[in-house]
């Protein structure tokens, strides 16, 4: 089980609370987690990653386990604590938060 914390505006769009849980098959990476998040909540497509380029939107950041993963390769495995659900992957708006 993967836990993802979304910023308030995206919670509203997805009709969810502060944290969502996902089941991700195979390797747990930013790409696989976001793919599953968008499959489960398609109204979030285009809000975290660009529809066409699949690049992270510039004012969004990815934090986990007190690390900034924003500039990691999308296919880099996420920390074990994320893969096990012990810690959440945090998606947030940079600084002012939008």
């Amino acid at each position, binding site marked *: 089980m993967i836990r993802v914390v979304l910023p308030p*505006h995206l919670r509203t769009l997805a009709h969810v609370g502060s944290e969502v849980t996902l089941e991700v098959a195979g390797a747990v990476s930013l790409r696989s987690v976001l793919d599953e998040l968008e*499959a*489960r909540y398609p*109204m979030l497509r285009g*809000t975290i990653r660009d529809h066409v380029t699949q690049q992270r939107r510039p004012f969004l950041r990815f934090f986990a386990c007190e690390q900034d993963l924003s500039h990691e390769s999308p296919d880099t495995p996420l920390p074990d604590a994320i893969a096990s659900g012990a810690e959440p992957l945090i998606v947030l*708006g940079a600084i002012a938060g*939008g």
Partner: protein
Amino acid sequence: MSKVRVLAGTRKGAFILTSDGKREKWAVSGPHFAGWEMYHMKGSPADPNRLYASQTSGWFGQIIQRSDDGGKTWHQPGTPPGAAPTPPAVPKGDSNKFAYDTSAETGKPLTTHQWYDGTQHPWEFKRVWHFEPSLTDPDTVYAGVEDAALFRSTDGGETWAELAGLRGHGTGPKWQPGAGGMCLHTIILDPKNRDRIFIAISAAGAFRTDDGGKTWKPINRGLRSQYIPDQDAEVGHCVHHVAMHPARPNVLFMQKHWDVMRSDDAGDNWREVSGNLPTDFGFVIDVHAHEPETIYVVPIKSDSEHYVHEGKLRVYRSKAGGNEWEALTKGLPQSNCYVNVLRDAMAVDSLDKCGIYFGTSGGQVYASADAGDTWAPIVRDLPAVLSVEVQTLP
């Protein structure tokens, strides 16, 4: 009795203001989509309960919202209304996908435009500035976007396709952003000729198609602009807004960056009608619903001082199609007022007498139920108003 529904988009959400035909007492609904920039909302002429809304954010990008019940409930087209969808009925979620067409079939439209410094810059989608629903089909709607391009949906906003012939015209490398970005902000559908559409771009100018959007031509003859090397060039003009009366689709009125202009031949030629305006810089322009020669503007002091002239909020009306203007001030602040009125923030209803509405950067939405003779605020303290549309309902 008839009713009116005013759709106000603001920097921090959308508001819906409703009244009966007297337009004296108003109900206010909102904020909808609280905290988001609502660039534009507009209802379908074919189904007044069908509304489209552009919800945007520099952080989270573009969201398209649709209502099928006059604004009571909203959903992103392609996702079911109400609760979050659950697999396996997962919708596509493509309603906010605006992908520029670079296909060989459409001539591979040029993919760079001029940047502020004169260099070339790639086309990048930022937001929808304006929706123009079809006059006959609620599921067909046009979207004017930044960076400037025209998109169309024929499935109620679920998916969008570019009308690439506009960028394919070939003058794209000369288009450049205005202060608000390089936006396609005006879309006018000709009610007498379904193949004719007018659009306007800051800062490229006005364009017209006569074949349903396949090919386009610039219609800027007569415009002069100080901020381009060739002041009467074919393209490069910062057109702020264009308005048309549906009974006379060949007559167009334009508020340019500076200058109020008029065309009597569907944009082929323009002449200035600024006349006795105190300043001819401004953003909005609109036409009385029943008097095609009566037009309205709100003069703004200058392009470096985006607020009304002399601290007075004045709507100017010409009953002669331009040149001769009168200030309309009754009910509007006439001292210490420094608000702006943006290009899509004025609208007219079709009641008798014609109602005029506009919103300000100070968060006021003003209404006149007597064609501009007198004004009163509907609301005074909204976030900065980006757009105002009105629907006249049975």
